[in-house]
């Protein structure tokens, strides 16, 4: 029978409590499963080392990484699994929000992905709304001064903007292609970042 001292057990439980608080987006059963598995793993590790000293417990916990690092690994692996199954931007964004709450890297990836999805959806909406607002929806170049101008994607609500419309009806195929392309590229970007985030943790014995 494996014996874990009370002090060791307290350290393990404190670690698992921190991890529990960071496993956002996992349901109760999934969190319980993760924590039970890690508890079992740590018990085996301590039994194998034959030590229950604070140093041995700390070494076993260090091998797992900090609670933030480990939660980040679970969340990015979860994102990769979701991406492989559905590629749904909503599912990807849900995971990115959780990752963003744990690290600056996750936050930056979320910002980039939100921008990409937003632009993609705006282009697609513009293309879809053009037949309903033929005079006001489209891509416009609006002068801001002598040498300056703004490029504006208009969905067709409000007045006819000052400036010059470019593309005309070509905005329909252009918007659909560019919009879909941006959404797909953003998903690829998010998945690529999640893969890159996984720590370089496979080493050679030599």
């Amino acid at each position, binding site marked *: 029978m494996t014996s874990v001292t009370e002090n060791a057990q307290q350290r393990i439980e404190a670690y698992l409590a921190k991890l529990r608080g960071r496993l956002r987006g996992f349901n109760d059963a999934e969190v319980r499963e*993760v924590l039970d598995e890690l508890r079992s793993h740590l018990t085996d590790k301590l039994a194998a080392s034959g030590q229950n000293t604070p140093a041995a417990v700390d070494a076993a916990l260090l091998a797992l990484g900090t609670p933030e690092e480990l939660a980040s*690994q679970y969340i990015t692996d979860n994102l990769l699994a*979701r991406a492989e199954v559905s590629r749904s931007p909503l599912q990807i964004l849900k995971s990115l929000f959780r990752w963003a709450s744990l690290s600056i890297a996750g936050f930056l990836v979320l910002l980039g992905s939100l921008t990409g999805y937003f632009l993609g959806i705006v282009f697609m909406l513009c293309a879809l709304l053009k037949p309903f607002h033929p005079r006001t929806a489209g891509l416009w170049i609006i002068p801001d001064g002598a040498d300056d101008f703004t490029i504006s994607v208009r969905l067709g609500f409000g007045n006819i903007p000052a400036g010059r419309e470019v593309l005309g009806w070509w905005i329909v195929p252009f918007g659909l292609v560019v919009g879909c392309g941006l959404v797909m590229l953003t998903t690829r970007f998010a998945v690529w970042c999640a893969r890159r985030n996984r720590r370089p943790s496979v080493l*050679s014995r030599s």
Partner: protein
Amino acid sequence: MNPRATNDPEPADKWEVQLRKGCLELAILAALWDGKLYGLEILRRLESDSDLIVSEGTVYPLLSRLKALGLVRSEWVESEAGHPRKYYALTAAGKERSREMAGMWARFSSSMSKLLAPLAKGK
């Protein structure tokens, strides 16, 4: 002059790390080919049979992902040590994926070996 050529072995090390990371999924599926194992056993099998030393903080989230993808299933089994352990086993889809990946690996390895043969001779 290439500044890296003089004293910077880092790119090769990074490449090796990426190569090993890329193989990890196949390595875990292969470790489960002969039957169910729990997390620590998988880590030890990888270390003893493939020389892959995997961080514990990597393997458990990865097992969770493989389970979400339906490639492995898990069950809790009471152990002689007095606490339950979570065992993983390949599903039918996991076996199929393992075979496919092993085939790809064999073909890739074989073609690379031909390409690399002159380098080995020049050692």
